[in-house]
């Protein structure tokens, strides 16, 4: 047994952390936060040059072919830096869907473009209120075109292509759902940006009017592919959340050491110490659950569905917990736009919803544990 990242993987983490510290300072994040750019283009290019966008994409498709453990390591750093780039939608969702279900031609077309930073991808799944469920997919596919509205679509306003979940049957079964690849720059697409909790990662509404689409994977396989994509993304997002949790904890700790009240460092008050200790506890539990998810993801283990749900829940809770208490430790300063605390608070709460909310994943976890126990 060896339940840790390897030395090479840790080296990669250091490299990513150093790179992001330089290229993705809070000041850089604020350019996007303040609405002066839809995402950090230069950072995106830099990430591509470092090989980070294609780290888990096989070499034959233009990637580094390193693997998913390496991607986990990078994801953690993306979360720690609160990077304002469409990393999760492109790399965890679009690229993974292509890897799982894409034809050779589709992979050849999009994966190298993702790895080089030339294409931004996303997953168009949600249609208003509700969590991932075949029932909630109303957008229709017929005769090679899509009709309907997707919202919210993460990074939808800047994406070049989308993996779209559509209905092409009325049997009432999961097999009514199929996936399609859509070039968002082609005709029949209308995109509207939506105001959202976390402006460092945009959300959009996309209207499809007889939009041309090519099938991704076999007809009727859509839901089973999506489930796999969401599970894999849950682990990768968990690492971003762990990175964010750690950063929020660190910010709180540093402030508690600097700020003086009643003639003492506020970090010497037990109420504050204990709040920070509890942040450490939730971040640690989340990290450990995520490591297990990383193992399951990288080995494609049968445990992946359960491990992914556990990592998702644990990391979502930890990031929300650390982000909100980081503000509390900072007092009034924490509630200013000027301090960075709210960037993590926004990101934590936006990420808590992106792949489906906590209650959805709680249901998934219990269903999966039951299935395992029954087996």
């Amino acid at each position: 047994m060896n339940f840790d990242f390897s030395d090479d993987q840790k080296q990669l983490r250091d490299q990513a952390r150093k790179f992001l510290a330089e290229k993705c300072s809070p000041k850089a994040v604020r350019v996007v936060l303040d609405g002066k750019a839809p995402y950090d283009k230069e950072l995106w290019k830099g990430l591509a040059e470092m090989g980070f966008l294609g780290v888990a994409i096989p070499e034959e498709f233009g990637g580094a072919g390193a693997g998913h453990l390496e991607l986990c390591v990078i994801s953690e750093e993306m979360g720690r830096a609160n990077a304002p780039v469409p990393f999760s939608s492109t790399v965890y969702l679009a690229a993974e869907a292509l890897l799982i279900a894409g034809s050779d031609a589709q992979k050849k077309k999009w994966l190298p473009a993702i790895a080089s930073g030339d294409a931004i991808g996303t997953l168009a799944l949600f249609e208003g209120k509700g969590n991932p469920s075949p029932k909630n997919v109303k957008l229709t596919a017929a005769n090679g075109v899509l009709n309907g509205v997707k919202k919210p679509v993460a990074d939808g306003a800047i994406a070049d292509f989308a993996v779209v979940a559509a209905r092409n049957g009325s049997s009432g079964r999961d097999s009514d759902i199929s996936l399609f690849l859509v070039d968002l720059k082609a005709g029949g697409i209308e995109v509207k940006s939506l105001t959202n909790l976390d402006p460092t990662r945009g959300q959009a509404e996309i209207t499809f009017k007889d939009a041309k689409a090519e099938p991704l994977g076999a007809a009727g396989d859509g839901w089973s592919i999506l489930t796999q994509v969401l599970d894999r993304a849950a682990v990768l997002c968990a690492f971003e959340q762990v990175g964010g949790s750690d950063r929020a904890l660190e910010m709180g700790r540093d402030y508690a050491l600097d700020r003086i009240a009643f003639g003492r460092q506020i970090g010497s008050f037990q109420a504050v110490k204990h709040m920070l200790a509890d942040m450490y506890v939730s971040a640690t539990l989340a990290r450990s659950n995520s490591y297990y998810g990383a193992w399951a993801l990288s080995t494609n283990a049968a445990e992946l569905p359960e491990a992914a749900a556990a990592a998702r829940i644990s990391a979502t809770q930890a990031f929300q917990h650390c982000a909100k208490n980081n503000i509390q430790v900072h007092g009034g300063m924490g509630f200013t736009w000027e301090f960075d605390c709210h960037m993590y608070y926004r990101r934590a709460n936006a990420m808590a919803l992106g792949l489906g909310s906590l209650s959805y994943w709680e249901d998934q976890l219990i269903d999966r544990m039951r299935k395992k126990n029954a087996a």
Partner: protein
Amino acid sequence: MNFDDTPQEAEFRATARTWIGANAPKQYEEELRKSSLGRTVLKNADILEVAKAWQKKKADAGWACLHWPKEYGGRGSSPIERVIWQQEEGPFGQLSRMFIIGHGMCGPTMMAFAREEHKRTYLPPLASGEKVWCQLFSEPAGGSDVAGLRTRAEKDGDDWVINGQKIWTSGAHYSDYGILLTRTDPTVPKHKGLTMFFLDMKSPGVEVRPIKQASGASDFNEVYFTNVRIPDHQRLGEVGDGWNVSLTTLMNERSAIGAAVSTGFPELFEYCSSLMLDDGPAIEDRAVRSKLANWAVKASGLKYTSMRAISALSKGERPGPENSIGKLVAGSMIQDVATYGLDLQGASGVVSGPEDAELAGRFQAMLLRAPGTRVEGGTDEIMRNIIAERVLGLPGDIRVDKDVPFNKIPTKGRG
């Protein structure tokens, strides 16, 4: 990152499994499995006798205290082999709870501070369960504030003479030896005047009085010392260095207890899987599922945190203060899980007898034992202090007694 056994680990596992299969006291397996929480009791046998017999059998075949050196009665195993053993030992591992203080705390302290001849004399019978040890630290005046203890040790020739009182001493009523923290100099600040010893619990002047606990059981005791003589060669560490020595014990205590605390989650999940509520199966109820999911990720988080710690250990890293999280999280979790298990039982949850209660009264037993878990081996608050100060580097609490001679520190809060 992998969970596979290496070829050596696989071989170790196979050997352990075969040996356990052939030697474990199988007649108690079912009972041990069922009483995995709250309290381990055997209906028709003395648990201490059963535990001692199993430990002795293990020791004779080289399976006792796996990570201890061979010359002290151990096996010299790697931390991972220790985990493999625990996995294979299964419910029989519960029998070693009787020895957790001796094996987890007293043994390591002896190894670090006793003379070589004492280690060779006292450690093998401790490892084999023939002799049981207890830890005599806490006093009415010094629990969280261990260094506030008042039991005196005074030098008299080659001996030390002990007078005072300990409290909450687990297992003292069946212990053969104990490690004892005393005050040898009350005129210096409290941390500087302490000295550690080990002693024979049958020494004249030692009196053990069991205390009835809130749970109804009597696992801990008061221990009174009246002119008890301990030879100087049984001193552990230097005179006045007892605080340092006790830190070794306390560090080990955190990992030993932390690793042993159960969360109650597997039991609750199993219970909910078959329980019918008024409007359907519990496991299909939204509120139940949400609770279960929240505890599931805590339980798995703890499990994988300890696996990470073991991986670090096996690479030669030392166990650190981060081990405090196990007991901190599991302690309140088991209390909450038990409360919820009873809530699900409705009004009948109040019945607690093993014969009449649901699930043989396991949640009731857990509920009544849980408050102790949150106190023993350092309270939740002390655990949080440790994490805040030693892991996160926050300032220590303000100590008003820091530079004050011990005998000048006030002893009562209100007049």
